[in-house]
């Protein structure tokens, strides 16, 4: 178990380094010259050359990568070229906002998706199931920019004006205010995943319901409640939970779009800012952090699955 954990963590870290390297290479390949970006249209060639040297951009990439990676390990993501301030603190604030948003959306997905899957599976074949399943299938076809746009049109200016379409600003105006601002983005983020997790859950619950061990349990004369709670759920939850955590990564992709729609001051928008401004330390930091959330999400998923399923626990011992 411990060995597995250690191996898994090492693997996770290795993936992270690989991802960082890839991001670094990618940003190396960016067509623009950072110095030009900073100096803008008024700069002379000498200015640019000087700034390039000043920022250490003339050193070999490998050396810069190691230097940068060393910094990252100590929480130092370098200095933003545009903002000329350390990326770390900016990132921290934005990440906190994004985590709040993703956390709420994740809770919605977990509760909604599992409930949806359970309800449809337990009512398999009924009209309720057909309606909900079709809705879920459609739900998986709604990208965040569509749900976001529709939510704004409905709740924030189009039909009603009950919720703000944007302007999240942390909790400085109180929890209620913050939650009001989080409602729409969280929903937009949650819809597609809720539908997806719901579908996966449905399939796995149905598989469990049709399994031999559930038949055995039923033929022992157990009550339906015991059968579902004790025999079906622990097994059915395994794929559902795996998918749930696997999609943390999707969520952190979707969050970029959602933050753009709802002008949400999170890491996704910071990343887009970095891209628009070719601020490579910002891009790198965001990419690595997003990737980290993703791989740790997967790790968490694996651990959750291990906690639920003793057989896997044994295998990995």
């Amino acid at each position: 178990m411990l060995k597995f954990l250690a191996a898994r963590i090492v693997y996770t870290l290795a993936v992270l380094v690989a991802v960082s390297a890839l991001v670094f290479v990618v940003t190396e390949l960016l067509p623009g010259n950072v110095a030009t970006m900073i100096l803008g249209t008024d700069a002379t060639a000498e200015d640019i050359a000087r700034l390039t040297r000043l920022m250490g951009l003339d050193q070999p990439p490998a050396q810069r990568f190691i230097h940068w990676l060393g910094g990252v390990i100590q929480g130092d993501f370098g200095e933003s070229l545009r903002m000329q301030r350390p990326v770390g603190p900016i990132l921290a604030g934005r990440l906190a906002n994004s985590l709040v948003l993703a956390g709420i959306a994740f809770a919605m997905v977990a509760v909604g998706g599992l409930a949806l899957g359970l309800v449809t599976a337990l009512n398999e074949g009924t009209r309720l199931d057909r309606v909900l399943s079709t809705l879920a299938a459609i739900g998986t076809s709604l990208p965040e920019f569509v749900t976001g746009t529709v939510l704004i049109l409905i709740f924030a200016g189009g039909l009603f004006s009950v919720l703000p379409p944007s302007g999240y600003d942390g909790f400085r105006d109180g929890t209620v205010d913050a939650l009001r601002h989080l409602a729409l983005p969280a929903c937009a983020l949650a819809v597609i995943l809720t539908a997806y997790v719901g579908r996966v859950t449905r399939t796995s619950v149905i598989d469990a319901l049709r399994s031999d061990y559930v038949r055995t349990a039923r033929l022992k004369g157990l009550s339906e409640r015991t059968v579902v709670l004790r025999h079906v759920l622990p097994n059915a939850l395994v794929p559902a939970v795996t998918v749930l955590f696997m999609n943390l990564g999707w969520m952190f992709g979707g969050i970029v779009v959602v933050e753009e729609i709802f002008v949400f001051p999170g890491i996704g928008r910071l990343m887009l800012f970095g891209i628009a401004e070719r601020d490579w330390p910002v891009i790198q930091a965001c990419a690595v952090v997003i990737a980290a959330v993703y791989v740790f999400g997967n790790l968490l998923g694996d651990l959750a699955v291990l906690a639920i399923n003793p057989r896997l626990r044994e295998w990995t011992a």
Partner: protein
Amino acid sequence: MPDALLGVDALSIAYRSAKGETRVVRDLTFRIDEGEIVGLVGESGSGKTSVALALLNYLPRGGRVVTGDIRYRDQSLLTASRRELRRIHGRRIAHIAQDPASSLNPALRVGLQLEEGMLRHLGISTAEARNRALALLEEVHLRGGERILQAYPHMLSGGMQQRICIAMALACDPDLIVMDEPTTGLDASTEAAIFDLLRELKAHRRLSVLFISHNLAAVRGMADRVVILYGGRCMEHGPTTTVFVRPLHRYTQMLLNSLPTMRGAATGDIDMPWQAARAPAEGCPFRDRCDLAQPECGQEQVLVEVAPAHGSACRRWQELPAFTVTVPNAANGGDSVPGDWNDNDVPSPPGREAVIAVRELTHRYRNSLLAAHSRATRLSLDKVSFELRAGEVLAIIGESGSGKTTMARCLVGLAQPHSGSIVVGATDVAALRRRPLAIARNLQIVFQNIAGSLHPRKRVGTILERPFLLYERRHATDDQLRDLAHSVGLRAEMLEKRSGRLSGGERQRVALARAFAPRPAVIVLDEAFSALDVSMKMKVRNLLQQKQSELSASYLLISHDLPLVRSMADRVLVLFQGWVCEVGQRRIIEAPPYHPYTETLVWSALALESLKPSTFELRPETSADTGTGAAGCRFHQRCPRKLGTICEREAPPQRQAGPDHTIACHIPVAELATLQHAEWLPRRGAEAVS
């Protein structure tokens, strides 16, 4: 008639599908009395499981009871409410499913699964339930008590899992247990042990059991009465002793005719046609395959009471040719081999040239890259040497996991041996990455899953032509293809069909035809029979034997089915954990001296046919890694005749037990022979077959 414990009356079951409703069971009537074991026998797909589930009113989705009634004592189970059913399930009628591994919830501890039924039905405390659970474990011979209760199912072996399932069924002391093929998927020795247990339970508890199986031998040994099912209908029913001795339905006769046994066989020799594509809906479902069929067999079937409590659905039961099975039992067992129809009895002389010579072949499975740290260093083959001689049938026997398949895979090049040589003709192919086509051509294999070895999307003609294209770089002529098809009893039209659209039997023949097509010198048969129904098994066997004499090919027959091996093999090689413990002429599995391991195999097979109670203390498989680096005999931990520490410390010598017969054991051959003869005789009378 006294009230039955369970009465099934004119039961018909149908499944809904896209094509409409299909009836899979029709008009089935039988009863189970208290303390009685009723065997339900039939080929795969004959509706056994459907009947079992209908008895529990738990048919799978789409299935329903169309007509008929099922009464438990006075209560109709079909009209019972769900609450009433819940009180009956587990408490009055328990169920043991086909596959123990999937019947246990992988996420729950065994103890909980064992106790939850008791807690629900018996109104006892958790502590009491725990005590009862421990007692049940004793009863099913599971040592380890608490430890087992704390275990998760996957930590137990298949045999242990099945015992847990049995314990679960026994937990609330039900009146009736429905056992749906309780030993399929278990290997022979485990199977024998489970049957032992069931027989013991039968003796100790007054259990009523519906015992479902396609294993005739097992049913013969277990059941008081049998119901023979074919195509969803009852063909014949009656007391086991009558039905299995004087069957009065042509189908039953054919079944028994096909049954090879350890000590004898049926006298008749009925040539049963290949399995029909689909049983006819009306009339006798068997008539398409029946050699005595007449037009009136297409009329509605009636079950005739041919003797008290013995019914037959055959219209012509009175006209059936006389057919008596010499019930093989201990009394006529002994060393005589009555009715042995294997005429290929001449031992292949040692002087015949070897077509394949295997020397010191060693193989180990390398697991995936990531799992390299695991201690899976056990050899799956350990310095195996033997030769396959021209025109002979060499059988490799051994329990599951003994390395038989690995052996076959190494021979045909699907597995890479670690060391050693495999000389085919003059070439050592062991280390070759790609074998020359000429060698591949001469070394064909028939897989366990014969039908599955065909590509489902290809036409039969294309499949049969492939060997010609591959080995001779030319298209086959139509005549060649037609002849090939005919040689396995396929009509020429079949060549145009896609193999996926053929019936199972047809597919099997296509696969065989393809293996024969390049006229190979050697055919490896890896469990080519184990998935087949009894009747099919014999068809395939006969075809293979016929082809062998035609092509004068050598067969390497891999099987754990001892009766079958006995009916086919010239020589036998016994493998235990990748190690050859005995090799010799066929008679080495017919009479002592045996290697102790061979002895256990033979005894298990005999026990299965109730020829011999397996009082033999087979030591349970231990999870301990046997054989790893142990210098001694690999079998010592499970050996019933273990001498002492010498077995643990020293590798056994190879002893000549006769011409062309080697036993690797510390016990001298003569001593083995006396021991084994001695033990056989006194025990013979000790326990009569019931």
